[in-house]
C-alpha cells in the first residue's frame, strides 16, 4: 500500500464516519426514518475491502452506507436516499437498507439476513460464464452464517468453483445476541473450511483488511474457486437506531472502542507514510465539507412524485 492509497483509505474512513454521524443526527431530527444501521467502528473493514475489491460486483447488507460510498457512489446520493428523496440512489423508495447502483456494480442493501448470498452466487456464476476477469464479493455478518442460505451458497460456490469472495464481518453480535449463543464457536470461518480456503484478519486494521481482500480477490480471479475471509470487528453503536445497546457492558464497549480504526490508522499514516498533521487535517476537513454538502443536497432534493408509487415495478407495462 502506497501513501496515496493510504491517504485515500483514511479519507474515506473519516468520510464514512462523518457520514454516519450526520445520518445519526438527522435520524434524531426526524429527516431520516426506518431502520438505520450505523457502521461506526467498522469503517476499516468497509473501506479497505472496497478499495481492494475496486472492480467486480459487490453484494452487501443493510449496514452498507460506508461501503456504498467507498465504492464510489457520491455521499450526496446516499444521503438523499436516507432522506427518502427522488435524487437518492434508489429514488427514495429503498432507503438506508436498500442502496443499489449497478453503474458501480454495487447491489448493496439487502435486508433479509443472508438473503443476498445466493444472489451473489448467481452473479458469480454469470461472471464465470461470461469469462469476466472480475469476481464477486459478498459481505455479510456473523449472524448470517447460521442460516441455510449461507450454507447452500458455500456448497454451490465450491462445487462450481465460482469466483466468489465470502467476506464475513464478525462483530460477534446479531442484534442483541452474542454469536456464542447461536453457534458452537466464535470463528465462523470454520463453517467454510470443508468447502474452501479460509482466511481471517483483523477487521479493525485497514491495512490488514486491504491485504487479505487483495489476496483473496487474486485467488478467486485466478480460478482458485471461492475463498472465505473472516474479519473480526466491532460496532460502536447499537444494532440500529432502535437498539439501545444495553446488552454490552461499558467495559466491553471500552475494550471495543480502544480498537477504533481511525486513530489507529491515523497514527500509521504519520509513522509509516510520514503524513504531516496538515495533510491529515486537510483530508478531514475535505471529508467534513463533503458530508455537509451531502446533507444540504439531501435536504434540498426533491421528494418523489406520487406517480413514483407505481413506477418501476416492471419493465413492460
Amino acid at each position, binding site marked *: 500500500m502506497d501513501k496515496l492509497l493510504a491517504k485515500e483509505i483514511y479519507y474515506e474512513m473519516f468520510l464514512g464516519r462523518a457520514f454516519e454521524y450526520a445520518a445519526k443526527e438527522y435520524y434524531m431530527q426526524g429527516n431520516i*426514518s*426506518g*431502520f438505520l444501521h450505523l457502521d461506526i467502528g467498522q469503517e476499516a473493514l468497509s473501506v479497505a475491502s472496497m478499495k481492494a475489491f475496486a472492480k467486480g460486483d459487490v453484494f452487501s447488507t443493510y449496514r452498507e452506507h460506508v461501503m456504498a460510498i467507498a465504492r464510489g457512489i457520491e455521499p450526496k446520493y446516499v444521503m438523499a436516499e436516507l432522506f*427518502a*428523496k427522488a435524487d437518492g440512489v*434508489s429514488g*427514495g*423508495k*429503498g*432507503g438506508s*437498507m*436498500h442502496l443499489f447502483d449497478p453503474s458501480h456494480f454495487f447491489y448493496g442493501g*439487502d*435486508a*433479509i*439476513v*443472508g438473503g443476498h448470498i445466493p444472489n451473489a452466487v448467481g452473479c458469480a456464476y454469470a461472471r464465470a460464464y461470461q469469462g469476466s476477469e472480475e469476481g464477486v464479493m459478498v459481505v455479510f455478518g456473523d*449472524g*448470517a452464517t*447460521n*442460516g*441455510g442460505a449461507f450454507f447452500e451458497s458455500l456448497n454451490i460456490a465450491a462445487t462450481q468453483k465460482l469466483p466468489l469472495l465470502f467476506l464475513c464481518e464478525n462483530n460477534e453480535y*446479531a*442484534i*442483541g*445476541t452474542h454469536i456464542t*449463543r*447461536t*453457534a458452537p464457536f466464535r470463528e465462523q470461518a470454520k463453517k467454510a473450511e470443508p468447502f474452501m480456503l479460509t482466511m481471517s484478519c483483523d477487521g479493525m486494521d485497514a491495512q490488514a483488511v486491504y491485504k487479505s481482500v487483495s489476496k483473496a480477490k487474486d485467488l478467486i480471479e485466478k480460478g482458485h474457486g471461492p475463498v472465505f475471509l473472516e474479519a473480526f470487528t466491532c460496532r460502536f453503536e447499537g444494532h440500529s437506531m432502535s437498539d439501545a445497546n444495553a*446488552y454490552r457492558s461499558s467495559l466491553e464497549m471500552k475494550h471495543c472502542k480502544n480498537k477504533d480504526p481511525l486513530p489507529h490508522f491515523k497514527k500509521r499514516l504519520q509513522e509509516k507514510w510520514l503524513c504531516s498533521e496538515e495533510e491529515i487535517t486537510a483530508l478531514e476537513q475535505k471529508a467534513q465539507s463533503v458530508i455537509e454538502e451531502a446533507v444540504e443536497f439531501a435536504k434540498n432534493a426533491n*421528494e*418523489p412524485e*406520487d406517480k*413514483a*408509487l*407505481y413506477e418501476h*415495478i416492471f419493465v413492460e407495462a
Partner: protein
Amino acid sequence: MLYREALNKAYDETMAKDENIVTLGEDVGRYGGSYRVTEGLYEKYGEKRVIDTPIAELSIVGNAVGMAIGGLRPVAEIMTANFALLAFDQIINHMSKLRYMSNGKLTLPMVVRFPQGVSRQLAAQHSESYEQMLCAVPGLKVLAASDVNYAYHALKHAIMSDDPFIFIEHELLYNKKGEVDTSSVIDPFKAQIRKEGEDITIISYLKMVDDVMLAVERIEKELDCTCEVIDLCSLNPIDYETLQTSIEKSSRVVMVEEDHKTGGFGAQVVAWIAEELFYALDAPPFRIAGADVPIPYNRHLELLSIPTPDSIAAQIIEWGRKNDV
C-alpha cells in the same frame, strides 16, 4: 396495559402453569424480544424455556414442530412477517399437514407469532402482510389481534390449544393501550362488533380496525347513516355468522384491509359475501386495501400505498354516494 404487555401477560400466565410451554426466536431471551413482548421471561423461566435462536427462521418453526411432536408446547416468534417466508416450507408442508397425513396420530400444539404490516418507513422487505397466504392453508388457525384484551385472551387460547396457530400482531399496535378483562374468557374465533350501526357494515381486522374507527364519524356525517364496524379477530376460521347478521341488516358491506388488494385476504371475505348474501345486498361490496406495489421507503409514498383514516373515509363516502347510501 399495553398490547405488548398483554401478550407478555398471556405468556407469563400460561408458562407459570405448564412447564411444557417454551418459547423460541431471535432475541426473545436475554434481549427481551425486539418488540419487548417476551420481556422478563428469560429471567423468570430460564434459558431452557426461553430460547434464543440463530437467525434461521426455517429452523425456528421446524424445531417448534419437532418440539410439539416431542411433547412440548412451543411458541415461536418470527421477528417480522417477511422473514416468515423462510419458514413457509415448515409452516405449510409440515406444521399444517402432519396431523392430517398421520390421520390424527400426531398432535401439534404450537403457535407461530409474528408482527407484520406497514410500520414506519421500513421499506419493502420489512412491511408486508401475509394473512392472505396463511389463511389459504388448511390445517392452520389464524388469529389477528387488534386490541389489548383480545391479544391477551387469544394468545392464551392459542398457547393452551392442541392445534397449530398463526398469531398475527401489527407492529404499530405494540404500544396501544387498553384494559384486560380477566373476569371472563372470550371466544377467540368470534368476530367482535366494535361499533353498532344500521346502514353499512365495515369489516376489518388488525390495525385497520383503528383506522376505520377514526374514519367512521366523518362517514356517518357525510352519508347521514350509521356504520357497524366488525373486527374479524379470527381470520381462519372466519366467523361468517356475525358477518351475515350484520349484512342482512345493513345490506351494504365494505372490507378494509392493509395488504395489497390483488389477491388480498379481503377477497375471500367479499367472495363469500357475494356468493352467500347476494340477494341481501343493495350495493356492490367494496374493498379498500393497499396498493399493488412493494412498500416504498418514502413516507409520503408509503402512506399512499395503504389505507389511512382519511382515504378510508373518502373512499367510502364516494362509494356511498355512487350507490345511494
